[in-house]
């Protein structure tokens, strides 16, 4: 019996292993409960029970964007406002994963691990949240999109507050559509906030990056001149401009958005240096955030692709993909003399945020360029904004710096229109990016969206 007693200690061994596992799982539950709760399939969260008792959401002017009453979620009275802010606010489902109502669903609904999701109404903590966005600006930009797919972002490059964030296609969160096979194409990408979650072929706005690479890598770039005969043959493949620009300086080539010149510049800089500069400016980097929403990674890499593709990549074609928020951040870097301000969307105004336990997450600002490079880019963007093509553009009369893009996307589609830049004004320091897909020329399709947004911001509603 003595021997069996000793051997029976092996039962302790098994039991301790089980105990250890349970302790580990208990720790895991405490550690990860928030991630576990916040799942799109969670019945406690994705029905009226989730948002029916959630707190209010305000814009920067304390305009109510969403609130709950009698176990139901209500949104702004104005349909355009509802649709314009759908991707920022979210709806009853968790389909738009980057929206406030999706990301902070548990905090908004008053969930905490101690009392669980079954907390009675009267004990639910107040969980209102205030955003940095301006509803009027979003509404104006949304209307200016005029049914095109795309997005517009405007943010304050001094503070990082995102003032306008609107994405299309959209729908009315008060009456979400039934998405069926027939209407699927109308709602393609509807659950993505294009500002943070999409990337587009940048076209000529990428010339900002190519120009930065040239400034940093070709010492005598400003003494060089570029011939444009309307077409440049690179390894048997022609790169064309709308018309022949003739002989131009570097500044003139940027202002004219000359493809032939920038194709040569990209080849001269070389694939490795192009990539290095693009990465300094946030391409191929997944660490950027708006509040704590990660930006989709922008892509640039032409190494090993040959001169022809390298030339195309230098004018924002080839495999280049840019995220609109990142483009706005690059503009803020130029505006700030080399440092990009990190954007955020949940206001730190008042004590709402502390209660909600939401990270305002003003991430550290990112040093992207040397101040000299930034200053030179600033001149280039000023030259671009003052060029003939921009003659009809007015951003509420503010002094502005900009670059347009018209990216070819093939497949017989109309090009993607871009308009990026910043305003130089003490009261209204805004960096912006707008994308209109199948919109045509950047200057005609995308700039009106920014004009509308900044117009609303400067002149009020």
């Amino acid at each position, binding site marked *: *019996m*003595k*021997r*069996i*007693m*000793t*051997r*029976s*200690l*092996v*039962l*302790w061994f*098994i*039991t301790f*292993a*089980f*105990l250890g*596992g*349970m302790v*580990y*799982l*208990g720790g*895991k*539950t405490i550690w*990860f*409960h*928030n991630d*576990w*709760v916040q*799942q799109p*399939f*969670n*019945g*406690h*969260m994705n029905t009226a029970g989730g948002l029916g008792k959630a707190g209010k959401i305000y814009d920067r002017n304390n305009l109510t964007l969403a609130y709950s009453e009698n176990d139901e979620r209500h949104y702004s009275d104005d349909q355009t406002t509802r649709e314009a802010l759908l991707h920022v606010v979210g709806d009853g489902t968790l389909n738009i994963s980057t929206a406030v109502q999706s990301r902070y669903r548990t905090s908004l609904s008053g*969930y*905490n*691990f*101690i*009392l*669980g*999701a*079954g*907390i*009675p*109404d*009267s*004990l639910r903590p107040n969980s209102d949240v205030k955003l940095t966005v301006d509803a009027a600006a979003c509404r104006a930009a949304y209307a200016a999109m005029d049914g095109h797919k795309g997005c517009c972002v405007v943010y304050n490059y001094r503070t990082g507050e995102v003032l306008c964030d609107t994405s299309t296609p959209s729908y009315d969160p008060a009456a979400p559509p039934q998405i069926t096979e027939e209407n699927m194409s109308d709602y393609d990408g509807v659950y993505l906030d294009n500002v943070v979650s999409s990337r587009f072929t940048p076209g000529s706005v990428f010339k900002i990056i190519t120009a930065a690479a040239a400034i940093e890598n070709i010492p005598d770039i400003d003494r060089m001149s570029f011939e444009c005969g309307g077409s440049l043959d690179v390894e048997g493949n022609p790169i064309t401009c709308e018309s022949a620009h003739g002989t131009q300086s570097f500044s003139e080539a940027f202002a004219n958005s000359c493809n032939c010149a920038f194709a040569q510049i990209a080849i001269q800089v070389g694939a490795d240096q192009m990539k290095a500069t693009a990465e300094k400016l946030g391409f191929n980097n997944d660490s950027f955030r708006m509040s704590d929403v990660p930006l989709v990674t922008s892509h640039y890499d032409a190494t090993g692709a040959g001169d022809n593709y390298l030339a195309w990549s230098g004018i924002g074609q080839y495999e280049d993909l840019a995220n609109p928020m990142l483009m706005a951040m690059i503009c803020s870097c130029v505006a700030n003399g080399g440092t990009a301000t990190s954007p955020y969307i949940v206001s730190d105004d008042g004590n709402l945020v502390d209660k909600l336990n939401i990270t305002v997450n003003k991430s550290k600002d990112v040093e992207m360029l040397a101040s000299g490079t930034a200053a030179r880019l600033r001149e280039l963007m000023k030259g671009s904004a003052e060029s003939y093509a921009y003659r009809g553009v007015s951003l509420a009369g503010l002094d502005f710096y900009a670059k347009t893009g018209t990216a070819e996307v093939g497949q017989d589609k109309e090009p993607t229109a871009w308009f990026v830049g910043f305003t130089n004004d003490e009261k209204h320091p805004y960096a912006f990016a707008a994308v209109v897909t199948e919109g045509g020329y950047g200057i005609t399709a995308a700039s009106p969206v920014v004009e509308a947004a900044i117009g609303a911001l400067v002149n009020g509603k």
Partner: protein
Amino acid sequence: MNLQVLLDVAAIALRALLPVYALVIIYQCFASARRHRRPEKPLVTLEILQTGQQIPVLFWENSIGRSKGSDIRVSDISVSRDHCVFLRRKEGWFVSDIGSKFGTFVNGERCEGRTKVILDDEITIGHTTLVLKRGEEYQERLRPSWFFSKASDKGALKPYKLMILITFFHLFMAVEACFSNEVKDFAPLYIFGAMEAVMWAFFCISSYALNRVNFELEALACFLSGMGVLMLVRQELRSAVVQLVAMAIGMILFAVIVRFIEDPDRVNSWRLWIMLGSVGLLAINLIFGRVQNGAANWINIGGVSVQPSEFVKVAFIFVGASALDKLQTKRNFIEFIAFSAICVGALALMGDFGTALIFFMTFLLIAFMRSGDFKTVILAIAAAAFAVFIILNIKPYVADRFSAWGHVWEHTQDSGGYQQVRVMTYMASGGLFGVGVGNGYLKYVFASESDLVFGLVAEELGVIVAFSLAAAIIALAFYARAITTRSRSSFYAISACCAAGLMVVQSALNIFGIMDLLPLTGVTLPFLSAGGSSMISCWGLLAFIKAADERTYAAKRRAPANALRERGAVS
């Protein structure tokens, strides 16, 4: 408005009270198990005739031999390492030779099989003669045990009070279920009423008809099974009823097994039939088995689905354990190994890898407790690893069933991780105190009442209650191990440890499986999971732990002592 706040605070307070209450009940069950320890003094004494040295006999079964591990160690070169076994039965004391070189003699006569020994009889082994003396004649303080409380400690709850506590816990659950968000009716109260009737009837029969002095193990099982039944009420009323009936059958099986193994030698004569019956059951299962959830481990008998492997678990323990003198024989061990191989093989063929793993782990446990031989255990693991390797090579699709293991969050919408992620999501949604019985969402997920019941409890009753269920199983294992030191036979010691070990392994596979620490194998959580066969077999397994507690047959304990005295008087 103020009244509403008051009512809500009251509801939350009640909900928060339930986990505390559950912990109190589980604590009380074991507090009571820790009492009533028999005074630790030797049962009898053996005196070495040649030296006059007195050896206390502490156990009901004692190995005598030259080896270090022997209960009674005789340093005599002519004594074999494991010479004989000196054991106590209802009829008195016996000595049984276990293949010694020079034999064992009682009063000069060489003994074959078990030979009765009475006071002042002389047992001769080698050149040593041992004389049987009374136990009172030897005094020595024994090593104290951490598990058992001291005699001076405060007394534990009386069994009936424990039952009242449990009844109220179930009542709270039933009332909460009556006011669930979706359905509001009094069906939970009817189930509650019927269930308590069954439990109290069991309690009364146990204490008055069967004269069992203690009830804490049964109380714990009642507590857990009752919780399982009430979790089903808002899921599917019919399965709650089935579960209740299974619980009643389980209680009967429990009582039958406790009675059956009262004589640990009776098992030995039935051993072959139990083995044949089990193999037959598994064979029927293999031939007529119905595939359900990827494993063909169900058969249908007259409209009732049963899972034969659950009953074979109980048989497995029967076959594995033996009295000390039988334990040493090679034949007994080889039979057990063959039986284990058949069981594990049959289960693997059915595709029920979870249960196969439980059997294998239990086999290792039993094999080690019997032989103490790490070589056997390592050999068995090596053989099993080889078998797994072969299976994965012949049937590579088997591995696919477990492919999502470790990264279930990438499989939230496919079968690989669908259940696991929902368990974790709803556990977290339940918080510490749960959302209330019947208010959960996990109940809409497939197998939530059986495989995922841990998550269901966590969501509706709270994470604390769920984790205290695991604590109860852990405590059960410690209890089983603590009582082996005082068991009446190695049969009880081994069977109790292995039954508890089986439950621990099963709980681990279940809980770790649904929380993605181990692959999801679809085994049940003891007592809690819906499933009649599982419920019945858990009560069957519990009977082994019950039988190992020396107090279980306490009323009968005086009999051998009297027999000894009478015989002693006669001689």
